[in-house]
């Protein structure tokens, strides 16, 4: 019998009599038993299976119980809504006072807040809030991009890395990346305080701060952001930024030298090849998806 699986067979009780005798004589038997016994007495962190399953169910629950609420405003055909149900996952840690929701790459996540407000997260983004204080102090931390429909009530604050956006019952989109912020107001009124500026936006107004380091007025192009319908839309955007967004959307690393040019157009979020064509063709770029499906090379 082979020696390189000897201890494994000791554990599974498959040793021959001579092997047993040898192990006992050498004292190994006793040592192994002590190790196994001590290991078996270890306990793992508890796992609440029902709670874990319910987390999955939350999304299904939203879709099933309020289909109207979703289609009314949501710009999503029923089929798309059904895909969304388990795409995003609720990570509510019962022992902590912070609730957190992540948008997984490639999917859009809809979530209801305790006050009835509704947030739709774009992929790769997350929000969190304090479960204890939220009722009295409506404050959400946002990383990335989300669309908010806020119920009437006290001030609702979206905390960003370098500032915040305050709201009084409205629908608006906030998109923050490393060097860009874009806020679009679709209903009501929002107030933005970010780095050195303070600005109030009303329905149909929007503002953009990007690599040009200048704030510009960019009114929203449609009645609701297009990414909610699975389309990423750009107006005169730096092509590097567009490629970055594409990679982020589909969870690929983008390998590209610094590209020049500006892109106006959109790509759809359901198919990476299709999206690549939509961006690369008009820009005269070539792409190659690497075999391991984790990165995309872009060349001129």
């Amino acid at each position, binding site marked *: 019998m082979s020696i*390189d*699986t*000897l*201890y*494994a*067979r*000791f*554990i*599974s009780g498959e040793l021959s009599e001579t092997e047993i005798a040898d192990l006992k004589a050498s004292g*190994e038997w006793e*040592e*192994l038993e*002590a*190790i*196994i016994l*001590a*290991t*078996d*007495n*270890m*306990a*793992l*962190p508890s*796992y609440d*299976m029902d709670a*874990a*399953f319910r*987390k*999955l169910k939350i999304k299904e629950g939203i879709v099933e119980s309020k289909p109207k609420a979703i289609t009314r405003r949501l710009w999503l055909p029923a089929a798309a809504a059904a*895909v969304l*149900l*388990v*795409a*995003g*996952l609720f*990570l509510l*840690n019962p022992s902590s006072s912070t609730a957190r929701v*992540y948008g*997984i790459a490639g999917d859009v996540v809809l979530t209801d807040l305790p006050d009835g407000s509704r947030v739709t997260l774009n992929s790769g983004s997350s929000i969190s809030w304090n479960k204890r204080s939220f009722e009295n102090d409506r404050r959400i931390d946002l990383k990335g991009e989300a669309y908010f429909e806020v119920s009437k009530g006290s001030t609702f604050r979206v905390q960003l890395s370098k500032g915040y956006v305050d709201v009084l019952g409205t629908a608006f989109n906030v998109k923050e990346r490393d060097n860009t912020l874009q806020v679009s107001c679709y209903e009501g009124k929002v107030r933005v305080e970010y780095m050195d500026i303070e600005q109030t936006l009303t329905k149909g107004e929007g503002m953009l701060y990007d690599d040009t380091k200048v704030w510009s007025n960019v009114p929203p192009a449609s009645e609701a952001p297009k990414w909610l319908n699975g389309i990423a839309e750009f107006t005169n955007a730096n092509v590097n930024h567009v490629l970055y967004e594409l990679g982020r959307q589909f*969870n690929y690393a983008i390998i590209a030298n610094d590209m020049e040019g500006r892109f106006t157009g959109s790509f759809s979020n359901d198919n990476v090849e299709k999206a690549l064509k939509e961006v690369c063709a008009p820009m005269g770029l070539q792409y190659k998806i690497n075999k391991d499906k*984790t990165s995309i090379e872009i060349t001129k």
Partner: protein
Amino acid sequence: MDQGVCKEEVYKSVFYSHSERLRNFLYYKSGNLVQAEDLVQEAFSKLWQNCASVSIEKAKSYLFTVANNLFINQAKKAQLTFKYLGIQKEKMDQANPQYLMEQEEFRIRLEQAIDALSEEQRTVYLMNRLDKMKYREIAEALGISQKAVEKRMHKALVQLRKIHKKV
């Protein structure tokens, strides 16, 4: 024709059969409980999205494969490093204080030694000891041969025996 796991009862039974072992598997790899539970949810959501093309028999290896890939991707991106596992003794028999102290010391050293194992060895060892999975089941989940599982198991124990010698 097999309908995969699209039926809710089927999907649920798959969740109840595999989610805990999957969570533990990911936990053994990273020592990060939050991440492990997060990835379980992600893996199951992928299973749901692809429910029509995954049969009940294939569900287990599908879940482990997907979860493993998700883990590798995250680890690559965030350069995650292994955190210590928080496995604790719970069930301790009555014994004299001297013996208990020695036991406790031994346990701590053992836990450190388990942490120091390679990811592959630790994962296989703990799946067998704590999840009570047979070598065949582990092989199936990880998509490797049973012989490979046995080798990892053996190597893990060779490493762990070293701490015993230091007593």
